[in-house]
């Protein structure tokens, strides 16, 4: 078999136009996903580093402006999970716009 007949698929170096479109959508989604999953806890962690008791009391735990919720609780109990659902919706929309559009153009 000739080496150039091999299929090349690499998430970080997409080879075809449609795969490039797919990967660009996935990258956006993964970046937001990482922020929602690990960014928010990291921000809460950083803000709470000043608490001598080590429990992480900070602006986030004292704030009550979000429907009366302590902000740090709301951000994870609802903020990030609602974010995930919206993110899935964005993924489907982006996919329809970028990838499906590209496929139709080809046809």
């Amino acid at each position, binding site marked *: 078999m000739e080496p150039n007949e091999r299929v090349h698929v*690499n998430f970080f170096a997409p080879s075809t136009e449609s795969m490039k479109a797919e990967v660009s959508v996935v990258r956006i989604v993964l970046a937001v996903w990482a922020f929602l999953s690990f960014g928010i806890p990291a921000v809460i962690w950083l803000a709470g580093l000043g608490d001598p008791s080590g429990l992480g009391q900070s602006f986030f735990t004292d704030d009550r402006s979000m429907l009366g*919720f302590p902000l740090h609780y709301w951000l994870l109990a609802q903020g990030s999970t609602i974010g995930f659902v919206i993110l899935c919706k964005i993924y489907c929309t982006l996919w329809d716009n970028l990838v499906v559009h590209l496929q139709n153009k080809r046809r």
Partner: protein
Amino acid sequence: MKKQSLRLLTSLSMILLFSGLTFAAGEEITQIKPGFKLVPAIIMIALLCVYIGVGFLSKVSSTSGYWVAGQGIGKLGNGAAIASDWMSAASFMGVAGLLYLKGWFGLGYIVGWTGGYVLLLCLIAAQIRRFGKYTIPEFLGDRYNSHGVRMIAASVTVIIAITYSTAQFKGIGLICGWIFGMDYTMSVFFAAAVVCLYMLISGMAGVTRNQQIQYVVLISAFLLPLWFLIKKAGGVGVLPQLEYGKILGDLMDGKTALGQLDANATEALRRDFLPWGHGDFYHFVALVFTLMVGTAGLPHIMIRFYTVKNEDTARKSVLWGLFFIGLLYWSSPVYAILGKFWNPAGGANVADVIILSAPETAELGTPFIGYLAAGALAAGLSTVAGLLVAGASAIAHDWYTTVLRPDCSDRQALQVGRMVTAILCIIVIFFALHPIALIAQIVAMAFALAGNTIFPVVVLGIWYSKSNKYGALAGMCFGLGMTLLAMFGWSAEIAAFGGEGLLPATSSALIVCPLAFLINIVVSNIMHDKLDEDSQIKGDNLLRKIHNLPETNDPGF
């Protein structure tokens, strides 16, 4: 001492979560109301008859009908099936209790279990659907052209299916005991008979249709008491999920239904709800990451994407599935916070019955107790059914018809499928009646197991063409080995694998999963020249299919 009790709490809550009401639950439930309850029992029996009837009406006669419902399920329907596959009897009853016990730290479970679906959606779902066959071991076996990879994946699928189902039966048994006054042994046989009956008759089509009905039953039973409870706690009663914030804010200041608490009790509440009262940042992230890659790697969840019409439906059904799951997870904290409001210092025995005691607390009357029990039972049955299909397909399809008897007919394959489903059911009943400690341990590790073993090899199989069977085998063996090592370390009480250790057994994927990726990539590259031509061609063909690449190599590609 503190370390020990924390470790105990972690293991306790994990087991509680997966095996339902294991601890002191029997006596707590019977404390609510012992004996046979006529009206709830009638409601439950009626719903069970519906499940079996639906199974009978969706009778199948082909292998693809049995395993993947003839690939004709729509996005809303599959979304509901994803959600009810996911929501076990234990998560129906256990998550609120977990949030009650672990406070803010418990939210890691909610974030992990919802975020995993994002990974599943954008890295795996559509490609798996384009592959278009029946099982995950089959995908891996074909992609890497290796029976070894197929066997490891099938074994992991079967192990997860059996242990997880066993854990469900514990919850189901307790519910039946609570409503019908049966003893545990009778309850297990009763529930097993129901599961087997409709699964054997109908296969995946019946299971999927039932899962849709079961989702409606379980979510309505779960949500309804909230409106009554929040009113009782002084809320407006419009949208409880948005109204419990003020109660939580007051809790952190020591204000409960019992009045203003003293300084010590207030401090205990603050500890529960401040970020790091039940674990530090590293353990939180490790937990969230493990649950996410575990969710995305669970074979019985991935198998769902084979049952849909096309890849567009596969994508949109994840969106719906996640929304349906979200409804449960946005509501579980309400139960937990209201539980704290009325009973700020309760332990595991209070946490256990938060959901089951809700109709009584909300004064919803006897019929609703039956409906709630039917909801919890629906949650258990749908999960067991999904698991048994995944487990049985791994044995019957991947072991028998692919490796042992590639030349058998469709009819024979279907028969073997039914037989294996029944055998699996018998094994599960056996383990449910003779619980051994190992089962509970494996269940607690299920997410780490799926995340370390299956997730890396599936993602690389899809997104990295250079990954080959040598890398796949090395990565899978490493993931499996490390998970087992952590599990035995955990049961031997070695500090490093405990709840506060460097490699907590139940959250080991943060370290092990990326290493499994790395090992797969490195070994694949080292062994690149040794790969036989047949494996290369087969792998390439499969990649062309799942990425919609042109059949032949054109210059533009």
